[in-house]
């Protein structure tokens, strides 16, 4: 239009409407399905990785001594408490003897009686032997009848057997007395080895059944970690591998150790492989038994090979692979994976070469039709 008065107005209107139209176009093109998906691309690196396994374990003692009476009874006294150090052979408590002493005294009396009976049998036997000898001589001189001599001889034999019986009776009583006496000694609860008392289950006066634990003790030197590894990620686990142990109570302190053995029996229910890890050096103070630990086992470093971040892995149509960027186009490349480390790096056995460009991060799931825009930072993610 050639009218300046109009033009001014028109310009003003355009000044409002044009930015609106531009904004509208911008909005239409940059949002919605027309908009390209911002992605961050990465390069397949050629490097070696040190795979590691991660497991959760609890502090356990390898040797646990559960001490209790061998028969039902009442606890009389306990001299140790939880946390006490005890020596091997130390008496740590005693069961109430109840009637044992009386039974011992009865056995003493029974023994004396048996001894007396033995002596009586000896005397009888001695007399019978002498009689038999005398009648034998008298028979030889024909001063007594044969019948009488034979009777005396028989008497002698009978008393001899009576003597044997009295002897055996005595040894029975003695043995019995010794058994009761041994029982009396077994009332003492004795520490089998030196160690640490970790629990005290009964108090004096408690009645316990045979085999029930009264005091539990461990050998502190035998503390180890019972670690569980998920079976899927337990590949390469074997004895002797170094391990880093992190106690839940001391997150900043890394303890070192190694795998003592991998248990031949796995946990079928939880689908975990079990292993024992021992400390290189026992932590001081000793961690409580049962404390949760995180154990990282380092596997041998692998030779160099193409390595990608695990964030790049996608599954498309049931195939595992990565989105490869070639000339601004997306292509899904199937990969065969090797080992992975705990920092999210995965070795690629097949499918990719070092130097290939792949999509690592994307704002949306990608498909072969997706338009992409390679950016440095994704919105909302702090660099």
């Amino acid at each position, binding site marked *: 239009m050639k*009218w*300046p*008065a*109009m033009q001014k107005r028109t310009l003003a209107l355009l000044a409002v409407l044009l930015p609106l139209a531009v904004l509208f176009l911008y909005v239409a093109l940059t949002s919605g399905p027309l908009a390209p998906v911002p992605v961050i691309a990465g390069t397949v690196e050629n490097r070696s990785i040190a795979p590691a396994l991660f497991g959760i374990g609890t502090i356990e003692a390898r040797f646990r001594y559960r001490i209790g009476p061998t028969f039902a009874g009442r606890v009389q006294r306990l001299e140790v408490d939880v946390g006490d150090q005890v020596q091997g052979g130390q008496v740590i408590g005693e069961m109430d003897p109840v009637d044992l002493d009386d039974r011992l005294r009865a056995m003493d009396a029974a023994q004396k009686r048996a001894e007396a009976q033995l002596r009586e049998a000896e005397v009888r036997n001695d007399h019978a032997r002498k009689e038999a000898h005398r009648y034998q001589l008298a028979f030889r001189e024909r001063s007594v009848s044969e019948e009488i001599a034979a009777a005396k001889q028989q008497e002698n034999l009978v008393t001899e057997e009576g003597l044997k019986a009295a002897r055996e009776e005595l040894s029975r009583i003695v043995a019995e007395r010794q058994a009761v006496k041994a029982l009396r000694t077994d009332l003492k609860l004795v520490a089998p080895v030196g160690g640490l008392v970790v629990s005290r289950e009964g108090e004096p006066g408690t009645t316990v059944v045979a085999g029930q634990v009264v005091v539990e003790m461990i050998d502190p030197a035998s503390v180890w970690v019972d670690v569980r590894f998920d079976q899927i990620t337990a590949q390469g686990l074997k004895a002797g591998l170094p391990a880093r142990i992190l106690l839940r109570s001391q997150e900043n302190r890394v303890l070192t150790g190694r795998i003592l053995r991998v248990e031949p029996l796995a946990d079928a229910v939880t689908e975990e492989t079990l292993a024992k890890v021992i400390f290189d050096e026992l932590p001081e103070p000793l961690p409580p038994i049962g404390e949760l630990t995180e154990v990282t086992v380092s596997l041998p470093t692998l030779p160099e090979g193409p390595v990608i971040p695990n964030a790049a892995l996608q599954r498309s149509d049931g195939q595992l692979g990565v989105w490869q960027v070639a000339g601004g186009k997306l292509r899904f490349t199937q990969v065969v994976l090797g080992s992975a480390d705990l920092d999210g790096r995965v070795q690629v056995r097949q499918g990719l070469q070092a130097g290939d460009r792949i999509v690592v991060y994307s704002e949306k799931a990608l498909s072969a039709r997706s338009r992409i825009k390679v950016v440095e930072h994704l919105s909302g993610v702090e660099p």
Partner: protein
Amino acid sequence: MDGKGIGITGLKKRYGRGDTAVDALKGVDMEVAPGEVVGLIGPSGSGKSTLLKCLGAVIEPTSGRMRLGAEVIYDDGWKVKDIRALRRDRIGFVFQAPYLIPFLDVTDNVALPSMLAGVANAEARQRAVELLQALDVGHRARAMPSQLSGGEQQRVAIARGLVNQPPVILADEPTAPLDSERALAVIRILNEMARKFETAIIVVTHDEKIIPTFKRIYHIRDGVTYEEEGEGRGFE
């Protein structure tokens, strides 16, 4: 007359029916020649407005005869098909207030009836600018109506009435809002235009200032017109 200008005979207009019917016009005769400016004077309720509306083809008379130029446009019924085109092309209006279209600039306001008649924009505008120059408002051609003074607006309104060079212009109290000097100026312009474009101009007014300028005056009272010689002063 000679078949130009406007002529009406026996024009009647009745509003309503039956007992409540009102006869606004009871047989009006009027004859205005091209180039002539006549006054139409009457008190309120005299039928002045009704006559103007009938002349302007805004309302339909009840009976009578109207001639515009050589064509009979009404003879107990409209004789032309397109009343709007009739209004647009052959009758010019000038109102008491200018009633310019506020969103069009002066030129387009004047050119609009031409454009409505199908004249190309450029041509219509050129004609408008010429008219505005003739009316001494050529310098305001690009202004918006709101930027004009009352007199300028009225002149623009006159230009709009003239742009299709209609045989007749109906001016309804064109000088009412103006002071006497400007009112007389408007009347002078109307006279000039009437002469220049051979247009019959009917000025409805009761403005004492301008009544003496008419050579011929129609008085209207109770729906009947009376013709009278005017003083015809001032423009010779």
